[in-house]
């Protein structure tokens, strides 16, 4: 009799475990080819989304169960997952990148509020702000909590930071916070692939799949084009801030762009995913004979060769300066931050145009233009 009881208990435990496990793991995994920090599992009508902590990949940053409004919430919900009823009818979006993406996906009507309106350049969002359909909830670092409560939003989309210290009062509002860690992806297509998650949130997945597939094909075709080029121009980037020159690390998102564009990026050996602070002499020692120099800056007036020299005379000692091979993007007037993450093919095409003139047909530049005298 005792033996029967033990067998019964063991069988009970075994079946209980199996039942829970299947719910947590999901029925099927959505195929994501490039994103490192995103996992989407299909669980019947619902989707279980896991965001891996980019700063400690052994941990999970957050997880969400996306349940369609028409369906019932499953009885067993994966542990610590936040439930989001999709498509989201109204969301507060903190970053201009995601605002522009949602506008591109024709989901602008689902944006209830935005932060940092000075960064927004997308016409549909600006129109929404002007008509009052979209509310400005203030600075993303210190948003107006009352306005957010009043919006009755289904979710808040924001970018997480390492050791950010939580989200303060936002966490106590009872509105699910969606942590958009896409900016930590180290490859352009990896970041682009997050479009699928955002589309799942706003019910426009098929459109997003089509957009992603088009961008992926175009991006890979451009990569194929540069892979056969043997003469890779030496590339340096950006300017000093004070006496510090931040260069993109060799494993960074930008370095991947440069590599795919067929550049010999001069700091590709730096084993870092973020930017690295260097001083002038370290940069000059390596990049004095760089062929091309691309500069990203934000200012009211456009940079010129003479203003660059006035700013800091030793800039004129670089070969790229002497050869007039500097290309600049003034982020005050160009939607660089809004457009590059989810239009990597356009950015890559432009880089190839700069690095390998004649390889592609001439097109009007979106981001960079040659520096004038």
């Amino acid at each position, binding site marked *: 009799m005792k033996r029967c009881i033990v067998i019964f208990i063991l069988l009970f435990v075994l079946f209980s475990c199996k039942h829970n496990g299947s719910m947590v793991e999901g029925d099927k995994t959505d195929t994501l080819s490039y994103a490192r920090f995103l996992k989407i599992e299909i669980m019947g009508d619902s989707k279980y989304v896991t965001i891996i902590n980019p700063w400690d990949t052994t941990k999970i940053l957050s997880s969400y169960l996306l349940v369609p409004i028409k369906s019932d919430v499953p009885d067993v919900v994966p542990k610590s997952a936040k439930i989001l009823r999709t498509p989201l009818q109204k969301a507060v979006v903190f970053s201009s990148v995601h605002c522009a993406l949602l506008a591109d996906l024709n989901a602008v009507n689902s944006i209830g509020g935005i932060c940092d309106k*000075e*960064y927004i350049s997308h016409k549909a969002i600006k129109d929404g702000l002007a008509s009052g359909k979209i509310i400005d909830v203030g*600075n993303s670092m*210190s948003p107006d909590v009352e306005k957010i409560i009043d919006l009755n939003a289904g979710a808040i989309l924001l970018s997480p930071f390492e050791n950010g210290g939580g989200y303060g009062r936002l966490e106590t509002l009872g509105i699910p916070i969606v942590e958009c860690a896409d900016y930590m992806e180290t490859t352009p297509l990896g970041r682009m692939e997050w479009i699928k998650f955002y589309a799942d949130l706003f019910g426009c997945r098929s459109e997003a799949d089509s957009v992603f597939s088009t961008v992926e094909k175009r991006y890979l075709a451009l990569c194929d084009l540069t892979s056969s080029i043997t003469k890779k121009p030496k590339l340096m980037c950006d300017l*000093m*801030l*004070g*006496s*510090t*020159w931040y260069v993109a690390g060799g494993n960074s998102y930008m370095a991947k762009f440069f590599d795919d564009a067929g550049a010999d990026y001069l700091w590709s050996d730096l084993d870092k995913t973020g930017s*690295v*602070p*260097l*001083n*002038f*002499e*370290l940069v*000059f*020692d390596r990049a*004095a004979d760089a062929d091309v120099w691309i500069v990203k800056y*934000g*200012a*009211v*007036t456009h*940079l010129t060769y003479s*203003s660059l020299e*006035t*700013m*800091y*005379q*030793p800039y004129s*000692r670089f070969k790229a300066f002497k050869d007039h091979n500097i290309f600049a993007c003034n*982020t*005050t007037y160009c939607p660089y931050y809004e457009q590059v993450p989810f239009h990597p093919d356009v950015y890559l095409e432009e880089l190839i145009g700069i690095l390998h003139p004649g390889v592609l047909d001439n097109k009007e530049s979106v981001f960079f233009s040659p520096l004038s005298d």
Partner: protein
Amino acid sequence: MFNVVFGSVSIPFSGVWDVLCGESGVKPSWSVIVIENRIPQMLTATLCGAALAVSGLMLQTVFSNPLAGPSILGINTGASLGVAIIMLMMGGTLVGGQYSFSGFIAVLMAAFGGSICVMGIIMLFSSVIKSNMMLLIIGIMIGYVASSLISLLNFFATAEGVHSYMIWGMGNFGGVSLDQLPFFSIATIVGLFGATLLIKPLNALLLGDRYAENLGINIKVIRNLLLLVTGILTATTTAYCGPIAFIGLVCPHIARLLLGTQNHNILMPFTMCVGAIVALACNLVATVFTASGSIPINAITPIIGAPIIVYIIVNQKKIHYFN
């Protein structure tokens, strides 16, 4: 010399020597690094250290306060406010009529303008208020007002602007290029020369205001002259190098502790030397002992300065600086 020989790029001594002697056949990049980067940086650190240290010494004497420094009267903060207006509000460009300035020139003009404005306000009060202590408090209050305006500008600024401003606020000696060096050097040397002309009244002020007046010193005039010289020195250094912390506060104390005298005839030139040496040492630490060669100066100066200030505070009675 260490600042010219040692840097983040390893150049042998013979290479540096050849560059300095104008020998041909030297690697071209070495020539640019030594002549256009290391030498201006070394000269900037020397002059900036001396200027800040002398400013601190004069302010400590005139206010009879061992904790007075170039930042105490808000002149530093005035420069910071000027830069904040340019970087955070005007997108890094200064427009005046048909002229527009951007980048380093705009920052320089803004910092200079900001510090001169604050100095003007202080001097205005100085001609009205007799008490040194009250003037000191007014200086601190102006600093607070400027700081609150900077906080507001920071709050509404773009992330890029805040980052640029934060980097400027960390201070550096590497932003002055060879072509900018002459104006910086002339302004600083004029200020330092002006300071040496005030040695005699500074010694008289050590005896107290009444004794100084009995010795024929016009306190108000001298105080205004001291403020003018300090203002020129602080405004110039802050405009070119950002707000450098602690050197102005600490170096006069190091000089006093080493010399054991309050006589400005010896103390002032010695303080200049101490300031220059401390600034050069900080610059060396910032550029040589880090792989990236770009540690901000203000991350190093407090490590040297704070223990000295604590020592001064703990032993204030023993030291008897200002009777």
